């Protein structure tokens, strides 16, 4: 049955589709299908042409042009922003950043007491013949000066930093960060001389406390145009804390 069916299909294809019908039918059919084949060849060729633009209609060309314009504009914008970024980066890297970092390092070195400094300030001399001036009074003096905006201090040859401790030494004198100093104590401070001087002289303040401690103790405060502080603090070794650059924010 499939055999005969296939045969019938083939015969029908031949008789109904392929067999010539005489020139009256075949010539027009041939001409028209020739035209169709020509058209197929033409449209395939024109598609391979100037990327199909030549065959595109006016509407399509306009929209293609508009697309290209928009793309062009956005690319231009990208170029501009990238160029701005490049300028910023190249300007930021070498000169400015280095200067800023150096300035910051200097400020931190002054604060940490690792560089010698000089500048206007005061020199306060604590005369304590009877040993009546306590460590409390001296620490108060340091705090008063800090409140008054002191930038660097030296206590009888020992650089005063944030961690500086003053304790009474057994047998007289003071231990400043473990260094034994004897009276008269000499406190050099760099800052606005007027402000520093009045910070020590406020009623009930350091000056009064020293005077009322008895034993003939006195404070002599001199304003000096150029105080030299050459003593240096040693930085303690960090054993546990590690810098975290990723979390570091630019301070003010």
């Amino acid at each position, binding site marked *: 049955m499939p055999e005969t069916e296939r045969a019938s299909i083939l015969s029908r294809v031949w008789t109904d589709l392929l067999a010539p019908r005489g020139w009256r039918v075949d010539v027009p059919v041939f001409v028209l299908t020739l035209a169709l*084949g020509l058209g197929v060849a033409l449209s395939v060729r024109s598609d391979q042409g100037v990327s199909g633009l030549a065959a595109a209609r006016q509407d399509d060309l306009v929209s293609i042009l508009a697309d290209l314009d928009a793309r062009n504009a956005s690319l231009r914008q990208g170029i501009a922003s990238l160029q701005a970024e490049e300028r910023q980066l190249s300007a930021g890297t070498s000169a400015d950043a280095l200067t800023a970092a150096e300035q910051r390092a200097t400020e931190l070195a002054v604060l940490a007491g690792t560089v010698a400094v000089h500048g206007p300030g005061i020199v306060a001399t604590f005369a304590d013949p009877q040993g009546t001036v306590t460590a409390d009074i001296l620490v108060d003096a340091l705090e008063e000066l800090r409140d008054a905006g002191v930038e660097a201090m030296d206590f009888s040859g020992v650089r005063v930093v944030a961690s500086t401790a003053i304790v009474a030494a057994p047998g007289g004198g003071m231990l400043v960060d473990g260094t034994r100093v004897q009276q008269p104590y000499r406190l050099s401070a760099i800052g606005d001389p007027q402000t520093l001087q009045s910070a020590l002289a406020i009623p009930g303040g350091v000056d009064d406390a020293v005077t009322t401690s008895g034993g003939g103790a006195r404070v002599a405060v001199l304003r000096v145009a150029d105080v030299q502080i050459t003593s240096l603090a040693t930085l303690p070794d960090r054993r546990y804390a590690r810098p975290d650059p990723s979390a570091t924010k630019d301070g003010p």
Partner: protein
Amino acid sequence: MIPLLGLVAGIIVGRVFGVSAPEWLAPYVPIAVVAALDAVFGGLRARLDHVFDDRVFVVSFVGNVVIAVLLVFIGDRLGVGSQLSTAVVVVLGIRIFSNTAAIRRHLFRA
């Protein structure tokens, strides 16, 4: 046989002689091809139905092509050329599919 010969001959002529459509006609060649394909499939179906008539075929072929190209041309003038050409291609495509379905049913009874 004759339509197949014509088609192959046309493609060969187009290829070998490298003819190209005139500038003003180029955008309409694809639409004309689709319209002609519709007419050809209609003719095949008519042959299988034993109702093929050469005059009907010629008129429908030429008419299809002319109307399709004219529609798209007018659409271009009106500024809706791309939409109209889509419409024409969709309609002709549907017709081609229904014709090929009829041909398939004729040949394979399925």
